[in-house]
């Protein structure tokens, strides 16, 4: 399934090196359309690097990314910003902007700073989609970590791209906010037909909410398959190097690795 023709985001032979160290090594694969794909793997596996290359934040040292039948690097910045968005984990948080200001930035690729009626409507919709109506005029530096993350995701929603890439969106969030964020992403895919790729650390969130999983280790992709094919004790043990016990309930798998 790795090279399905209809997939719009395909990569081949990706290599990235920092000095002598090769952080990702000849990656081939593709992202399935209209689904959530989770990138999992231990620290230093190259997940964030892959995500950065797929979103053109980082230039690869070798290999090719093809996006919607064109090479990723031929896109004009603005054109790409209307088709693919990326949210990194390290965002400037010490900024006195209102949630509305921030979400409105999501419209920048379209409005270039001159917001139309449609743009504001999209902003309103994005804020409503992530349940932030009550906080519209709050400053983001006064929000809790979870609310702030939702505000950033709301901006990405306003950006209204077909592809949405998120680097550890659950970082530092409590359980309630994590669930909220994942449910929002699920709705983006199910209701609006987006394609979402996330780097995620908690295996259970990946197991519960994603459709596909790309499992990485030591700069290589070990598996790229449907969730149910990945969430198996032997595979997870190979990736993470610890024991897993998989509990199945209502067709959903829960991984226990806490104290085995």
């Amino acid at each position, binding site marked *: 399934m790795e090279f399905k023709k209809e997939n719009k985001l395909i990569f081949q032979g990706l290599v990235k090196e920092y000095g002598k160290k090769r952080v990702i090594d000849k990656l081939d694969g593709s992202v399935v359309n209209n689904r959530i794909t989770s990138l999992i793997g231990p620290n230093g596996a190259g997940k964030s690097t892959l995500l950065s290359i797929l979103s*053109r*934040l980082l230039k690869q040292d070798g290999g090719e990314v093809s996006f919607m039948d064109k090479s990723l690097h031929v896109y004009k910045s603005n054109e790409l910003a209307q088709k693919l968005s990326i949210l*990194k984990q390290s965002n*400037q948080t010490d900024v006195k*902007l*209102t949630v509305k200001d921030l979400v409105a930035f999501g419209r*920048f690729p379209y409005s270039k700073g001159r917001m139309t009626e449609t743009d504001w409507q999209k902003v309103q919709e994005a804020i409503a989609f992530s349940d932030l109506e009550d906080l519209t005029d709050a*400053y983001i530096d006064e929000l809790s970590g979870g609310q702030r993350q939702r505000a950033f995701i709301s901006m990405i929603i306003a950006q209204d791209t077909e592809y949405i890439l998120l680097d550890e969106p659950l970082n530092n969030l409590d359980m309630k906010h994590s669930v909220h964020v994942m449910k929002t992403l699920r709705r983006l895919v199910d209701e609006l037909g987006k394609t979402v790729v996330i780097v995620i650390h908690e295996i259970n969130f990946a197991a519960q909410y994603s459709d596909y999983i790309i499992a990485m280790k030591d700069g290589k992709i070990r598996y790229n398959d449907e969730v149910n094919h990945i969430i198996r004790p032997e595979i997870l043990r190979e990736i993470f190097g610890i024991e897993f016990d998989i509990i199945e309930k209502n067709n959903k798998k829960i991984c226990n690795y806490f104290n085995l």
Partner: protein
Amino acid sequence: MRTKNRSVIYYTVSVCCILLLAWISLFTGVKDIRVVDLLGDEDKLIVFLISRIPRTLALILIGAGLSISGFIMQQLSQNRFVSPTTSGALESAKMGILFALVFSPEASLMVRMLFALVFTFLSSLLFIWFVEQVKDKNTVFIPLVGIMFGSILASISTFFAYKNNIVQNTQEWLLGDFSSVMQGQYEAIYIILPIVLISYLYAERFTIAGMGKSFATNLGLSYHTVVNIGLVAVSLVVSASVVTVGAIPFVGLIVPNVVRMLIGDNLRRALPLTAFLGAVLLLGCDIIGRLLVFPYEIPIGMTVGVVGGIAFFLLILKKSK
């Protein structure tokens, strides 16, 4: 909307302050000029036209320009303590002027300004590059390095100035002073007007760039282009003002921080208030300097330095608690 009403109040108050202070500035000085004199007394009218009006305009323009520069620098460097004073920009402008004088003692205002511009731009580039290398943006560490960087530049300047018999000590040289602003010598600062306009047009881009490189790239913005445009704008304002009136410290540091506390970081919204409050600060400090030892004057660089130094200290205290 509560915030809207608050903004209206801030704007009304600051505009009233500017008008009032401009009025005082126009009618304060050794020569006693009253409104009625402007109609009859030709001598007084000439003083009014060639000295008082240029001085007041210069105060307003430079106050506005330096404050906006500070705001832009703070956004681009993602650090609230960065400003022309705390990044070496003032010192590099001085250095530029000095080198212009070394190469040609008769260097015209235009040449001096050009030298100042190039030096300021290059040093800002260097400074921003340095800031990019530092991981934690929200530290007092960055402006401290900026101040040290400025001191190094000042020492180099002093060395060359001393060697070439231009000035004894560049530290006190070109200390901000509006007393010599006169018709025919201050027009370079009008460059601030178009810069303010461009900054307003680019306001959104500056704020986005201030959110970080990946944030800006995601929105299709060319991060480095925006940074360069910002630094050119800042360098133009700083070099024009240092050439005409000398170095005025702290304005670009204090005003943006006060404005941010009042109405936040969205530059599009904050820029006009930043300009107004900058003008109010300079007009106020200049009037104090003119009145304290009347009929003599204290240079504005000193009054602003005292007011700004204390405010800077308070800011750091507030930030680190």
